[in-house]
Structures are given as structure tokens and as C-alpha cells.
């Protein structure tokens, strides 16, 4: 039980509790804020997992930009609380059942230990082999010599340059799409 684990535990509990509240608050605004809270918790966990850059943009982009968008929309719609926000109990039952099974399964998947994964990857046929840059052999811990941003930037602008560029097209499309959809008349 290292300190790391303890901190992780705190963040984990924070995230789960926030998520629970997010899905159970009747008020949409409250839900949204609890979601923001979850995201902050996750950002903390990212830091613990040595993904500092991701943690930063989690806060900036997700918690900041995307969620603000949600809040805007909620306010824009300005709906009263829907008379019956909750679905009937069979739905609850089904949802909980599904969630339980899903959790169980996902947790079991955790059984894919690093060794097992490596073994399975090595026995894959060549045709399914994953290019070398996907696994640059970095199993080591400790700070990366390239720095927090550098270790993301290098692959991002080299191996993943084309996908990266394509995301710009994606974003452009999203912008245009949003304008087209949301405006009453063009």
C-alpha cells in the first residue's frame, strides 16, 4: 500500500461517486457539473499514470470546452425538469443487471496480464502483426527524457502525422455540420 495507491484510491472514489451522482441527479445542470467533477478526478488519475499532457488537455478540452458546450445547450433549451425523469423500474432492473454483468466482465478482462498480452501478440500471424512503432518497447518507468509534451509530440507528428492532419478535417466538418444543423436558416 504505497502512497501512490492511496492517492489513486482517493481519486478513484471521487470519480465513481461523481459519476454516480451525475447519472442520478434529476437536474440536468447538476448532472453536467458532476460530470465535470468526474473528469477532474480522471485528470488526477492520468497524472498518476504518467500521462501529464493528457491530464492537462482533459481539464482544458473536456472539462473546459466540451462541458461548457453542454452547459450552454442545457441553458439554451431551458427546459423544466421533465415530469417523469426516471424510467420505470424494469428499466432500472435491466440497466443495473447489464451494468453488473458489464463491470464483472470488464474487470475479468483485467486478467489480461502484461505477460499474457505479450504472449498473445507474439503468437499472432504475421499478417496481423502490429507495426513496430505501436510498441516502441517502452516498458520502463520514470520520467521520459523527451519531457512531458515531447513524448506525445514525437509520435504524434511523426508516425501519426497523417491521422493528426485528418483530425483537422474532422473538426472542420464538425464545425460546418454544427452550423448547418443548429442555424434555423442558412
Amino acid at each position: 500500500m504505497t502512497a501512490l495507491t492511496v492517492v489513486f484510491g482517493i481519486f478513484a472514489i471521487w470519480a465513481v461517486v461523481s459519476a454516480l451522482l451525475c447519472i442520478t441527479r434529476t437536474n440536468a445542470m447538476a448532472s453536467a457539473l458532476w460530470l465535470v467533477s468526474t473528469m477532474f478526478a480522471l485528470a488526477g488519475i492520468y497524472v498518476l499514470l504518467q500521462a501529464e499532457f493528457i491530464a492537462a488537455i482533459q481539464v482544458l478540452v473536456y472539462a473546459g470546452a466540451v462541458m461548457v458546450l453542454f452547459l450552454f445547450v442545457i441553458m439554451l433549451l431551458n427546459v423544466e425538469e421533465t415530469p417523469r425523469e426516471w424510467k420505470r423500474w424494469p428499466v432500472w432492473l435491466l440497466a443495473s443487471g447489464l451494468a453488473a454483468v458489464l463491470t464483472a466482465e470488464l474487470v475479468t478482462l483485467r486478467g489480461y496480464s502484461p505477460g499474457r498480452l505479450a504472449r498473445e501478440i507474439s503468437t499472432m500471424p504475421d499478417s496481423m502483426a502490429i507495426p513496430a512503432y505501436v510498441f516502441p518497447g517502452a516498458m520502463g518507468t520514470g520520467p521520459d527524457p523527451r519531457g512531458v509534451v515531447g513524448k506525445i509530440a514525437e509520435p504524434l507528428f511523426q508516425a501519426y502525422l497523417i491521422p493528426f492532419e485528418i483530425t483537422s478535417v474532422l473538426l472542420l466538418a464538425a464545425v460546418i455540420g454544427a452550423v448547418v444543423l443548429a442555424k434555423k436558416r442558412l
Partner: protein
Amino acid sequence: MTHFVWLAILLPLLGAVANGIIAVRRPDSRRLVSFIGVGVLLGAFAVSLGVLREVAAGHGEATKLLLWQWIPVSDRLTIDLALQVDQLSAVMLMVITGVGSLIHLFSVGYMQEDPGYARYFAYLNLFVAFMLVLVLGASLPVSFIGWEGVGLCSYLLIGFWFEVDANSDAGKKAFLANRIGDFGVLIAMFMLWWHVGTLDYAALAEKAPAVLPYGGTIATTIALFLFLGCTGKSAQIPLFTWLPDAMAGPTPVSALIHAATMVTAGVFLVVRTGVIFALAPVAMEVVAITGALTAFFAATIALRQNDIKKVLAYSTVSQLGYMFLAVGTGAFAAGIFHLVTHAFFKALLFLGAGSVIHSMHHAQHHAGSHADPQDMRNMGGLRKAMPWTFILMAIATLAIAGLPPLSGFFSKDEILAAAFARGETNGLYRVAWGLGLAAALMTAYYMSRLMAMTFLGTFRGGSDVEPHLHEAPAVMTAPLAVLGILSVIGGALNLPSFVGGSHGLEHWLEPVTEPATRLMDALVMPHGSVEYALIAGAIAIAITGLVVGVRSTLRSTIPTPAEAPAETGIRRLLYGKYFIDELYQKLFVGPLVWFSRRVLWQGFDQFLVDRMAVGGTARVAQGLGWLGSRLQNGQVAFYVTLFAVGVVLILRTLVG
């Protein structure tokens, strides 16, 4: 000349093409058509004469003439388009081109006013070409070209006046009956090839005895299938019903195709493949009995027919029965002998009937009468108007009845004697002989009845018609006269020893028939007192039949068709031809058509496959689609639920 025998085929073929073109381009060039139509036949006849001379001078060996490789399919099956010239084909050549020329000549007069004159000669020439292929073919497939080809021409010529439905029907019926027979020939060919390994006549004669065991099932089956083909082509029981209907064609056609040549092809085929039959005694018995039964039954039907051509048609069926009786007893030469003499006198009878009909038709046309020109009840006393025709037909009648010294006497006597001889060892042949004898009596009766109804007594067709009756033109009577002479002297071909002859035809054909006869028990012909008794009996029967026929016909009053009472009892049965046509219609044709339409087409195809199977599949797909569309209720939540369930299930397999 033997090497140019293909000319005999080519000439009529060219004639057919030329006349065919004329028929399309300028159907009115009758002179040219007559010239080509008759000319090519005379040319073929000349070739035949040359061939005959050379065969006579030769040493009895067959000449095989390879024209080209027809179906060279593999090392073991190569069918050559080859011709075989030997004694048998020479005889057939002479009959076909000789009688054929006469009938062509007769047709010039008979068909003169028909709008389809050129077309008629095109068909007729084509027929001769095919018939020659049939008899000259060196192997079964080559003969089969002719075999089916003559069927085609027969179809076309029976339905020559196609605008009358009944004529087209008759043509189709003839072709179908022939085709049932062809089925037999085809199967026989398949079996021969697989069991003997060749379809060549000469090779068959050589190999078959070595390969096929005598009396074995295989030989018998092959022979019976071949014989099925013969019953179709030669109108024997059970496939004889087409021949009387075939009289729908022009009368010279009936004379050439349905009396003298094509219908005798069956007899020819049995003789050609005699070896196979000789190896199958059971098949021989079947051939003989079928022949005898056909001879008998057809003769009974002929007793009560009123249509002059129908009488002759049944008479032809009956006479063909005699020929099969002959070949069935192993007396191949006797069969061919009767074939030849029958060609003479039956062609004469038909042509005579043709000129009678021609005359009747013209007279009725002039008088504006619409009575049936072929119905003998409308005739009578024609002897005065048509003396030549009368005399010549009378000769033919005596010949067919078997009065000595006319040709029919010798040939028929030979057959009956052979059947009697076989009867010594095999009772079945005695029965056949008895049937033949009875048929002879009836032949004499119905022929004299025909003559009496047509030429004797007084004219019953109306006084307005009578003055217009006239003798046929010379172009028609001349062929009749030639045939008359041949009918008288035809017996000389094969004179028996008791009149000092030497069985000329029998010896002539020996090289052809020898391989077959060698395999069978020798035929010990009756001689001495038995022989004389048989001859005396035959003559007595013929005279009795003739006298009774004439006298009973003249004594009774003959009602015209309009006022004739309905026939009753056995007469009705005979008049209705035993109702075999109706029986076939009810038993085979009707049910088959019904079955095809209701069960196969509408039942199976349309209902079971289309509606149930194909339609059912479509319905199932539609149903599934409906279920699927129920899932698409538009509720996103519902979709997500399904999605989640799917994820869970997929993960389950990953985890498990």
C-alpha cells in the same frame, strides 16, 4: 458407275433446292419445275441402272464409298458419311428411282393446277434423296439420316395442303409415330456400339455373331428395339394408325411414300441388320407374329372402309405385315421380293385411285358438287369413262389378290410357304401362316369390293357430275401402264422352281443375307405335293375372295354417304378401325397432355416451385424484414439497450 452413286442422291437433292428456290421466287414456272423435278429423277434412275449393271458384273462384294468423315469424335467412335453399294441397295435403288420416276411423271399431270406445284416437287425430290441415303447408307447413323429425313418429307407432304387442320394433324401424327420408332432405333444403336463396338453394317455382320451370344438377352433387346423402329416407319402394330391418316397428302405421295418406298424402309432395315435378328430367335418370332397380326387386322379394317384411299392404306399396312412375316421367318429375300412387287402393284393402285379422284374432282368441280371425291359410295360405273385406268387397276387387283401368273402371286406364295415351313418346327409360325392365309382371303375380297364399287355398276355421284368424268391425260396413264406391265411380269424376278425358275432374286441377294441365314436353321421349303397343295389353296382363296367381293358388292344397293345408315355391331367396329385412334387418344395422348399441363406445369412449376419454394422464401424474408422493422421503433434508448446487450454478449465470448 458405282463410284458415282452419290450422284443419285445429289441430283434429287439439287432438284429439291432448285425447286425450293423456284417455289419462293416464282412459283408459277411449272414447266421448269416439271423439267427439273422429273429430270433429276430420271438422272438418278440412269445412275441406278449403271450401278445395277456394275453390281451384276461384280463378284458379289459390297463397295463402300467414303464421302467424308461425318462425326470423327474419338478413336473408338468415328462415323463416316459412307455409302454402301451391294445387291440389296441396288435393288432398292432401282425400285426407288424407277417407281419414283413414274410417280413424278404422274404428278406432273395430277398436281398441274395446284398453286404449290413447285413446293410439291421440291418436297418430293427431297424425299427421294433422303430415301436413297437410307438405302445406301453404310452404317446405321447414315441410314438414320435418311430414315428421319423421309419422315420429315412425309410430314411435309402429308401436310402439303396445310390450310386444312386435319392435314397438318395427320402430318404431325405421322412424324410422331415415326419418332416413337426412331427412339427404338437410337437405343439399338447405343446398345450396338457399347456391345459390339461398331455401327457399320459390314462390320456388324462380321463382328456381331462373335460378340453377341446366340439367343442372348442383349441381341434380343437390340433386335426388338430395332423392330420398334420398323413398326413406326412401316406402320405395324402398335404404331400403324398414322398411315391411314397419311392419306391426307396428295395421292401420288401416298403412292410413292406411303406405299412403295418409305413404309418399306422397316423391312429393308430388318434385312440390312439381319444378323442381329438372326441372333435373336425370340425377336424373329415377334417380328413374324406382329407382321401376321398386322396383315390380318389391317385387312379386316379394309373390309368396311368407303374411302378409296383408306382401303388402299389399310391394304398397304396389311401387305407390309406380309413382308414382316417373311423377314420374321428368315426368308429375307421373300420379304424384299414382296417389297418390290408390292411397290409395283400398290403404286399402280394408288395412282389409279389418284386418277379416279382427279377425274371425280374435276367432274364435281364442273358440276358444282361438294361431295367427297374419294368416297367410293359416290362412284360406280367409272369403267366407261376411264377404261384404261380400269384395266390397269384390275391387273393390280388381281396381282395383289395373288392370282398367277401375276407378280403378287409369286411373292405372297413365297412368304406363306416360308411361314408354313417354319411352322413345322415352331407352332407359332403355323399361327402366323394361318393369319396370313386369312388375310389373303380378305385382301381378295376388299380389293374386288373396291373395284366393284368404283368401276362397276352405275354411277352414284349424281347425273350432273357424270358427263364430266373423263380419262386422265397421257402423262398420268403412261406411268400407270408401265406399272401395269411391271405388276404382271414382276414375278419373273424370283420365279420359283416349280414353274422352271431359279429364285433369281434370292440368289442375287445371297451375299447380303448370307451372314444372317447362316446363323439360323435352314429353311426347308415345302415341295412336292405339299407345295402344290399350298399353291392350289392360295389360288382357291384368291378366287373365292375376288368372286365373293364382286358379287356381294354388286348385289347390294350402296347408299350415298348422306343417306347411309349408321353402322352397327362388328361392322361399326371395323368401320371405326377398332377405335384404336380413340383408344390411343384417351389412353396416352390425353392423359399425357393433362399430366403435363396440370401436374407438371401448373402443379409443380407454378405452384410448388414458384409459389411455394421461391415465393415461400420471399415470404420468409419479408417476414424477417417485418420483425426487423418492428425493432426499429425509433427509440434511441431501446437501441442503446440492444447495443449494450450486444456488448455484454461479445465480451462474454472474449472473457470466456
